[in-house]
């Protein structure tokens, strides 16, 4: 009997915490779908409306921000996949001269992420003429230490016999990579891809520093300008804008919950 009440209490507490955790988002949904005067009054029968979304869409250049973010995320991920695959393969299978030192130097980036070096990286971008370009936002992130590390670990688990078999079939060292290693690392690519896309969809500080026009600003920067208190836009419209900005990732997360959590787990534990 004592066990049962304990279980009920615990379930209640777990649910309560879950509700509490959903509250900020639920509140934003409430405000976004109701007229502004209802934003801080709770009335179950308040009329629903989509006008906040229409307003948000017209107040700020959301379509352009969406396009920028999609271009940015795609560009970074494709570059990361190529660069990290090559480097990860080098570290996993070629005991080349200086590889240990080089690997240590790669890992430095796990600590010193580009956002810590905004001052110098801005100077470099200015010298390269890449300030206010999407390439400028993406460039510092393309050679990802994290991706190199993850792929190196995965490639190391591939049995040597498979590689030798492919060599006998006449594959060169790039052929082996493409035919043997890459297909076997598919779960790692999925995990890394999800983490990378989430990270760069949400990234803010460096894109803020390096952009200064609508044509290059990603969603997060656009949202920050739009949602700043001094912009004078009312709460319902800000909520609508915020929901639009997070919707793609949120929907993807709700649909592929399991993959998302496993990816973050896989990527975190290494």
């Amino acid at each position: 009997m004592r066990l049962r009440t304990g279980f009920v209490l615990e379930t209640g507490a777990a649910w309560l915490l879950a509700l509490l955790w959903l509250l900020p988002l639920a509140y934003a949904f409430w405000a976004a779908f109701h007229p502004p005067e209802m934003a801080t009054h709770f009335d179950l029968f308040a009329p629903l409306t989509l006008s906040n979304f229409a307003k948000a869409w017209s107040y700020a250049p959301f379509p352009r921000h969406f396009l920028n973010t999609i271009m940015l995320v795609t560009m970074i991920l494709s570059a990361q996949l190529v660069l990290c695959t090559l480097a990860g393969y080098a570290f996993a299978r070629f005991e080349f001269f200086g590889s240990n030192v080089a690997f240590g130097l790669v890992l430095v980036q796990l600590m010193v992420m580009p956002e810590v070096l905004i001052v110098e990286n801005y100077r470099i971008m200015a010298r390269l003429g890449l300030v206010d370009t999407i390439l400028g936002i993406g460039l510092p992130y393309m050679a990802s230490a994290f991706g190199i590390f993850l792929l190196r670990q995965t490639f190391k688990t591939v049995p040597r016999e498979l590689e030798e078999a492919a060599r006998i079939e006449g594959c060169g060292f790039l052929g082996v990579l493409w035919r043997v290693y890459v297909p076997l690392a598919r779960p790692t690519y999925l995990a890394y891809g999800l983490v990378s896309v989430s990270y760069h969809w949400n990234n803010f500080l460096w894109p803020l520093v390096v952009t200064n026009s609508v044509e290059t600003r990603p969603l997060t920067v656009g949202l920050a300008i739009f949602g700043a208190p001094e912009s004078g836009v009312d709460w319902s419209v800000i909520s609508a804008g915020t929901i639009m900005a997070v919707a793609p990732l949120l929907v993807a997360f709700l649909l592929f919950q399991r993959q998302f959590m496993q990816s973050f787990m896989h990527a975190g534990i290494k």
Partner: protein
Amino acid sequence: MKHVYGWLLLTPAAILLIGFTHYPAIATLVDSFFSTGTVVRPSRFVGFDNYAALLDDPIFWQVLGNNAWFALGTIPTAIAIALVMALWVNEKLPARALVRMAYFTPTVLPMIAVANLWLFFYTPQIGMLDQVGALFGAPSHNWLGDPNLVLPATMVMVVWKEAGFFMIFYLAALQNLPPELQEAAKIEGASRWYFFRRVTFPLLMPTTLFVLVNATINSFKLVDHLFILTKGGPDNASSLLLYYVYQVAFSFFDTGYAATLTVVLLVLLALLAVVQFLLIEKRVHYR
């Protein structure tokens, strides 16, 4: 041959890594010994002048202290909540998938959006917190305008954002614990609290250390919310080191001093790297 191939494969990534991590890190150090150049007075070598200015800068000490409080306030709380979440979600709870989703959702939201959502919790009078407080007769607070309340207010938000992320690591670790332990404890008649204290928690120690180090590193990089909520104010009461770097470099245009502040940040991160390395070494010995 393998030397040539190895380096060829590494080169594209190496160029970018050197260009945007190693070179700027060293350039930061060099720049910290130079004054900020202006049109009339070009940048010149000033030795340790920037560092002397740093030691005399009350705002530097304030943001450094804020960073320490921020880390102390958010990390243990977030880890404790994450552990409880993981223990719950690991059990056969009704609607478990839903609960797990609720806990994890803040992780996929950008910090900017999170700050937007929380801004209206904290708004005086019409904000959610004050409305709920009013029901119980509590006075209205200016949560983000009061120097004593602003840092704790941002800390609560960060705990909310991070706990679900840390939960994932505990969950993974819990699922790898051998189920025989639980059965043995049942036969011995050990209470759940006893089992948790003497078996589960010690076995989760590597995970706790891993999360701890990563959370500490993260606490130096979490500044996005300040752009929406407080701009570091009032009177720098909520400002953090990286945000101050941003302000000095891009609002006050004092790049020499910004470089000096960045060096402090890099040194702190390097110290953390050493701690992490030692912990990993220890873990290897443990096995």
